[in-house]
């Protein structure tokens, strides 16, 4: 099982001829991800180590039956690339590009809703179902197949957390980087439900950070819908107000969106929040009764 990606994933890479696109395409393929094609306007007919390249996603879908797309194009072109994938019949789009304008994402959201297409990102490191498929830029060596589902607004913080999980013997069902932008695709609520429904997932790790109130909403959702154990971590307890902490979405505005509020919201519904990264696997093991 696992969620979103697995052995049935047929991936097309949009922006496959770019520096990052080609580099990570080969990494994904090396991990065993079924990369069926790439898109790069004007480079149709070429190939990247045997992966055929097309001018449009439509051709890639028609000729290689891609069902999932990952996007490495520059941010100003990302919204168009996402919509192109959706229009071509792709059902899951992962957008790695960082710096996509927020109004582009608002427009994209409305379009994807009409088309019934799922999006992860933008500005995310991608997702992985260990031993089945990695889509994005994740360092695969830290992951291990197992029963913990993980979702995170951050990249490297996720890697740290995953390596702590793995070194503590806690493998992962699927790990999803949901991205650090204010308006993004699949978020806590949808992913919590997917992990809840996934028989392979036994516990859930939620890594949040300052900005917005998605964590507060997630807490509310967990209270009402999630029966599996959840442990959270919130980054940005020392972040000042009004400053964008790297991620476009990580900003405390008018005293709202603080780590304190988020931690309190989780604890109010019985979700433990690790104060230090190293504490997280310990709490999780206790909840999973693995001690």
């Amino acid at each position, binding site marked *: 099982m696992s969620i979103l990606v697995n052995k049935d994933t047929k991936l097309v890479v949009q922006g496959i001829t770019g520096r990052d696109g080609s580099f990570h395409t080969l990494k994904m393929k090396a991990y065993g991800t079924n990369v069926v094609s790439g898109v790069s306007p004007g480079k149709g007919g070429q190939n990247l180590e045997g992966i055929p390249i097309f001018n449009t996603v439509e051709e890639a879908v028609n000729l290689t039956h891609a069902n999932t797309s990952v996007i490495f194009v520059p*941010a100003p072109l990302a919204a168009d690339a996402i919509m192109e994938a959706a229009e071509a019949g792709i059902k899951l789009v992962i957008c790695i590009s960082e710096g996509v304008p927020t109004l582009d994402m*608002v427009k994209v959201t409305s379009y994807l809703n009409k088309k019934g297409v799922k999006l992860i990102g933008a500005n995310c490191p991608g997702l992985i179902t260990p031993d089945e498929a990695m889509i994005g830029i994740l360092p695969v060596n830290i992951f291990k197949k197992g029963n913990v589902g993980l979702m995170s*607004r*951050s*990249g*490297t913080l996720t890697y740290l957390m995953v390596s702590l999980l793995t070194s503590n013997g806690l493998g992962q069902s699927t790990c999803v980087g949901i991205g650090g932008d204010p308006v993004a695709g699949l978020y806590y609520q949808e992913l919590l439900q997917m992990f809840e429904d996934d028989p392979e997932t036994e516990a859930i790790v939620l890594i949040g950070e300052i900005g917005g109130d998605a964590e507060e909403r997630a807490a509310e959702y967990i209270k009402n819908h999630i029966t599996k154990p959840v442990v959270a971590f919130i*980054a940005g307890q020392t972040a000042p107000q009004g400053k964008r902490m790297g991620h476009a979405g990580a900003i405390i505005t008018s005293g709202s969106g603080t780590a304190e509020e988020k931690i309190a919201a989780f604890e109010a519904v019985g979700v433990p929040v690790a104060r230090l990264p190293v504490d997280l696997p310990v709490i999780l093991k206790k909840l999973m009764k693995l001690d």
Partner: protein
Amino acid sequence: MKIHEYQARQLFRQYAIPVPDDVLCYTAGEVEKAARDFNRMVVVKAQVLVGGRGKAGGVKLAKTVDEAVIAANKILGMDIKGFKVEKVLVADAVEINKEFYVGLTIDRNTKSVLFMASTEGGVEIEEVAKENPAAILKIPIDTDLGMTDFQARKIAFKLFSDINLVKQAVEIFKKLYKLFIENDASLVEINPLVITDKNRVMAIDGKMTFDDNALFRQIDIEALNEPDEDEKKEIAAKDKGLTYIRLDGNIGCMVNGAGLAMATMDVIKYFGGNPANFLDIGGSSSPQKVVDAMNLLMSDKHVKVIMINIFGGITRCDDVARGLVTALDQMKVTIPIVIRLSGTNAEEGLRIISDYNLPTVNSLSEAAQEAIRLCNLVN
């Protein structure tokens, strides 16, 4: 990116949203001339990029030219929440019958543009939101359609009953939406939107924030940026691929990734230390970026210790180590450095820096504790 009130008023005018006349002044002399030209009651308003000017005494009514000059002398040079007032706006003080709030923002949860309106104008909307959330009307705007007449009318009828006022408000709301969309704003507020004694609907004050991610296509907006000293440093860092924010502490941080950078700061704080900055050297870090980052950290005289925390994924630890070695060779680094490398090529990285006698640590917690210990030694 934030802009000043006087710039927001300019944008309102550009979109034909009615605003009282005003003049931007840098000196009391300019204020005197402006007040004389107005020849009626004016308001003198501090132009700083922070809320709460009114409470801080940064906004004053002046019935005469003399009063305007007195106000200007008081306000110019004033410090408001750490921001020095360098300019004031002298504006026609129209007679106000009633104040309202209207604004547009992007709602992260519904992923749509949200129009907000309230009859409680003139105060900060966050306070209204906390004390009387029901007083704020929130209407999602379908960006496929834009702000339709009927939606603008629906909102206007909730604020006004006179059809003449409704019609003026409908035009203002539609223009405000246009301003929001066309300039990639993340927040635009008219606060207060007022009815004047002549039954005109007007914008008296405006607040605007723009999407940094969209500035590449908003050249005119980017040109409005007036960064303070800290922000200039942030922008300079950005040009080198670094995300930097100065803080009040003394442990300089260098981390790859925004989330990990925040978590690193949190861990330092957890063990009783104070981070001097947020510094994300980004994904595929070249050695040069590390050199730039070291220069940036060394330029802050508050920094007593440098703590480097790298989790190698795309970033390779050996690249970071190479950059650090270059920096150490180039510049005179007199303060202690704690470095934690893990993930991709961590061992090679540690080997590269092994000659430099840096403290070795095994975990993030240990690194933070060591940095704090060294910092306390220096003090």
